């Protein structure tokens, strides 16, 4: 759904969790400092009914399940407020599309896999620096268990003042981050080349999982969700042409027969960039917005020429293939505390519009990816830059 506003803004992934959100789940007692942080950020963000949370946190330890559920809800309120107040100095602060910032999830893989039948957890595997995910092995055909995002969506919907969205991890990513035991054994008996066996196994698993996720999405739509973001960080993991086609096939299978606004987010491709997905990705016909990370590969200088905006080179792919729908453009690199200047963010946005030649209403502005690895302070500043950068870009356009 296209906004009637130039350069609408959105959160794209996770937000950091405060220590008062995580410690009660790790059986660690809260300290005075944790409660002070809750108080300070709650006031800063204007979180309503703060006192009940602070009273609850003062219990320090031994929280019941119900108390932990309330802590998660407060955490979602903080995340929503962080997005709706981002760029608080602006005349119109806040992002246009918001969600609960992964506060109700363990993370984007473990939560869905824990709630789909057929998986068994094996142990932790390192992804990046000292960040790990808990890998699961698929032991039988995956099956729907419950709509694992419904509660968080309903909570977000009833507490957000801005348009709510709901990110859902796609089948491609769950497959890429899982062990394929059941499918590997099934295809291992066929007389195919090893690479063909592996692809056939992951294709079958992907499409079967897409069917399960479709049911999750369908339930969300029935309960009022309109904006579904399919998260596909692993879209560029396997780099064959067949795998690029599978990304689109998986998207289509997940959204088949459903009525909503569907977008796809991906990030951190191999050195060849997003070009490895083209043109096959554009066969994801139900996708109205592709939101990718770009700032990670960009320089910090100000300017809207190709030389200054090297990180945004891949946007030309959309132009070259005649793409006319929406784009989400990452304008803040999330794996560093180094903040770009507001002018550089503005120019990244203006360059994206210039190089794609899309109407500014179709260029959404967001961080590159989830901000969970940043401190709350840095994450909030980055969200502020997204809001303020879009504001500056609008003014620049209006002045031209």
């Amino acid at each position, binding site marked *: 759904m296209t906004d009637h506003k130039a350069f609408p803004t959105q959160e794209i992934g996770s937000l950091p969790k405060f220590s008062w959100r995580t410690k009660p789940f790790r059986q660690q007692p809260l300290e005075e400092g944790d409660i002070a942080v809750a108080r300070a950020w709650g006031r800063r963000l204007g979180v309503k009914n703060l006192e009940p949370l602070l009273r609850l946190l003062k219990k320090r330890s031994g929280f019941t399940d119900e108390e932990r559920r309330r802590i998660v809800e407060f955490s979602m309120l903080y995340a929503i407020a962080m997005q709706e107040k981002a760029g608080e100095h602006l005349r119109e602060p806040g992002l246009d599309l918001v969600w609960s910032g992964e506060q109700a999830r363990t993370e984007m893989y473990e939560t869905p896999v824990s709630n789909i039948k057929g998986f068994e957890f*094996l*142990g932790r595997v390192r992804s990046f620096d000292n960040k790990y995910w808990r*890998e699961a092995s698929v032991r039988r055909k995956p099956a729907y268990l419950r709509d694992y995002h419904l509660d968080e969506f309903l909570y977000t919907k009833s507490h957000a003042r801005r348009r709510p969205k709901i990110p859902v991890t796609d089948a491609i990513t769950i497959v890429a981050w899982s062990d394929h035991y059941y499918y*590997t*054994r099934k295809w291992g008996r066929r007389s195919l080349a*090893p690479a063909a066996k592996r692809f056939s196994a992951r294709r079958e698993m992907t499409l079967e999982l897409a069917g399960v996720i479709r049911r999750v999405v369908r339930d969300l739509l029935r309960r009022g969700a309109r904006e579904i973001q399919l998260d596909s960080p692993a879209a560029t993991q396997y780099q064959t042409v067949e795998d690029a086609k599978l990304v689109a096939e998986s998207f289509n299978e997940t959204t088949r027969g459903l009525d909503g606004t569907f977008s796809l987010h991906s990030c951190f491709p191999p050195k060849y960039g997003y070009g490895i997905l083209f043109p096959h990705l554009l066969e994801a016909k139900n996708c109205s917005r592709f939101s990718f990370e770009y700032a990670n590969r960009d320089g910090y200088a100000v300017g809207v020429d190709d030389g200054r905006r090297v990180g945004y080179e891949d946007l030309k792919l959309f132009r070259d293939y005649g793409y006319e729908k929406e784009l989400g453009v990452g304008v803040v690199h999330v794996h560093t505390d180094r903040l770009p200047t507001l002018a550089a963010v503005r120019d990244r946005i203006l360059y994206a519009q210039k190089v794609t030649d899309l109407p500014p209403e179709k260029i959404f502005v967001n961080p590159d990816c989830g901000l969970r690895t940043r401190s709350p302070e840095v994450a909030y500043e980055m969200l502020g830059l997204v809001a303020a950068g879009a504001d500056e870009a609008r003014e620049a356009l209006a002045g031209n």
Partner: protein
Amino acid sequence: MHWQDILRPFTTSVKGVKKGAMVRWFNTNTFYFTPVVAGELLSDGSAVSRTFNPSLVKSGAITKVILPDPLTFVELAENSYYTSRERLIFAYCDNVLRPEVEHLSRMGIGYVQFSAPGVVARFRGKPLPRAELEQAGEGLRTVLKGVKVRSGYHTFFGDAAPYLPALFDLIPTDDIGFDFTETDPASLGSGEGLIAGVADARSSYVESAGELALRMGGLGEKFRKITLAPSCDLQYVPRSVADAKLRNLAAARLRLIGK
């Protein structure tokens, strides 16, 4: 080890290299910072050794260190300083690998493995020019000349068959390694030292010792020295799975030597 990806010691501690964008490591869910070569490469030899505790070397066992091979480094780096890939290959070998390997040898490191996924995991099958394999071989000859370490060159994530027998002919390391999930052992021919990547390090299925031994086929008669190994780094499976795979590799060895 305190490094977070195999290139990190070089992106953070070698002169002439800056840390660039975070990028996906081949077809995995792991990432590295791109080494951006913006000046003359120069290492004092301690980039790698400062990332691990020297007490590891004193344990009595042969300690092995893994380094990116020249072709993988060149493939993944962004080069704005050297006028050709060839110059970058030789600069990396002469100014970085040589001082690093010399220093590691002085520390008592007994084995250096050059990991070479960049040679065989070619994007959409684009072949590596033979000339570059020759340059890497020449560069590594300089790196290893007179240094008292045993060395290996391990290819993984792709089929090495298109580069055989060139790998054996051109690469001067004591052992050449292969990922048996990608490279058919029947294509290997014969030679001196072989790293047989028989255990699938991308799958959490733990092969039995018998299965691993079976994957060796008749290679035992064709190579003078064989090392049984995982197909690639074991970081792609949980620790408990990795430990089980290593245990079964040891058991497979006993089975193969008839103990």
